[in-house]
């Protein structure tokens, strides 16, 4: 069976004048499940933020330890303080849990109805009212397929424009019409999240009256990437490592001139350095047939890590230097397998760069951290 990958994007706005967003989103990916927990703290600012953070953190850690949802919900609802005057809980709770077989469970407690965007149509994610530990919640399960998209929004989005541009606010039907008319199932999750949040901000005339959050989860085929960087310790291993690189699923990338020469020799294919695009900082890229990208090594990797720290800029960038191209390919992948060679690299045997080997380990560690922070699954194998 082809396992699908949940691509997740979160877009948020804070209430005008507030620095902290009172909505909180916690994403946890494990082998067993991917869970997204969303909480909207009553009010805004610090207090709302703390309540929402508490709610999402507790929920997420309980779910990670495989505590069933039927137990998690009462634990949370009983722990959460209730507003004395308004008799409502101090924060809402919404859970979206996806199993590896694409079975999705949605739980809503005082939160807006979840959207299901399937084949261009938008419908409420099917849920039923349930009573757990004296609390009315809604819960539903549905088997998702490739291209299915789940959208969850906080109250701030539902009420966008209320009393201003829109008498009753944007509201659920308005948002669902916007999704159906202006978003496509082919769009990536981030594009949809940014679009909806952009409209929301527009209805608020750029002055959000409430914290607003959009979470988009799209199921698609997983994208893998194998990165081979640095010559292997032992020359006899060259062939085997190149075979691993070429046999891997998905994109294939080589970072390092000496590494590129090894791949070229093993495959019997030439390396062509591209002199057409010149960049003052990043050495030029090269091409080898059947590889998706060939770049220089340590300088390009270091710059690519920098680019991964600013995804918005990366997405908008028109630069075509090796670091930007590499960062983009890495960003687009869900799973990255790094084959890192440990040989003393001849290109680093320059008296001007001492201790290069430690630097290499450091660069790979930084790369791994940057990718994991973006929710990627990364493996590093020293060869």
């Amino acid at each position, binding site marked *: 069976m082809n396992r699908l990958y949940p691509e997740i994007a979160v877009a948020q706005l804070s209430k005008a004048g507030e620095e902290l967003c009172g909505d909180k989103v916690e994403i946890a990916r494990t082998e067993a499940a991917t869970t997204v927990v969303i909480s909207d703290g009553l009010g805004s600012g610090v207090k709302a933020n703390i309540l929402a953070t508490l709610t999402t953190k507790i929920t997420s850690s309980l779910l990670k330890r495989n505590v069933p949802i039927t137990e998690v919900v009462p634990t949370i609802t009983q722990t959460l303080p209730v507003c004395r005057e308004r008799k409502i809980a101090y924060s809402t709770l919404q859970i979206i849990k996806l199993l590896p077989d694409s079975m999705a469970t949605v739980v809503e407690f005082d939160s807006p109805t979840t959207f299901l965007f399937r084949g261009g149509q938008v419908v409420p994610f099917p849920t039923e009212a349930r009573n757990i530990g004296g609390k009315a919640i809604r819960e539903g399960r549905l088997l998702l397929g490739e291209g299915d998209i789940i959208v969850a929004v906080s109250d701030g989005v539902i009420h966008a424009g209320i009393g201003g541009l829109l008498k009753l606010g944007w509201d659920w039907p308005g948002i669902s019409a916007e999704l159906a008319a202006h978003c496509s199932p082919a769009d990536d999750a981030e594009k949809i999240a940014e679009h909806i949040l952009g409209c929301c901000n527009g209805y608020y005339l750029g002055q959000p009256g409430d914290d607003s959050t959009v979470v988009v989860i799209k199921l698609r085929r997983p994208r893998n990437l194998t990165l081979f960087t640095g010559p292997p310790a032992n020359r006899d291993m060259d062939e085997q490592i190149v075979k691993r690189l070429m046999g891997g699923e998905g994109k294939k990338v080589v970072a390092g001139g*000496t590494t590129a020469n090894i791949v070229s020799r093993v495959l019997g294919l030439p390396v062509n*350095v591209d002199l057409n695009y010149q960049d003052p900082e990043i050495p030029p890229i090269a091409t080898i047939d059947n590889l998706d990208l060939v770049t220089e090594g340590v300088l390009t990797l270091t710059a690519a890590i920098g680019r991964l720290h600013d995804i918005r800029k990366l997405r908008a960038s028109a630069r075509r230097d090796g670091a930007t191209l590499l960062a983009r390919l890495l960003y687009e992948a869900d799973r990255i397998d790094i084959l890192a060679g440990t040989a003393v690299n001849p*290109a680093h045997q320059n008296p*001007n760069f001492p201790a290069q080997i430690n630097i290499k380990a450091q660069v790979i560690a930084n790369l791994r951290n940057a990718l994991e922070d973006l929710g990627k699954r990364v493996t590093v194998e020293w060869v």
Partner: protein
Amino acid sequence: MSTLLVEICLGTSCHLMGSQDIIDAIESLPPDKRGKIDLRGVTCLKTCRKGPNARINGVVLSEMTPERTLAVIEDNLP
């Protein structure tokens, strides 16, 4: 028309030692000369300690500068 093969190393070490300046110098030669040069980049000539390195007509030359490279090219142009 026969051309002169000029390969400039663009590996990490040579890049740091200024191989891009050599490329720039060759690129800005007048068209009649530039047209006779088959300029290519290579990734490492395994003499990193003595970069930037170039290979002109198959001969590896170390510790190159733009001026030296242009002089060698001048001597070898077909």
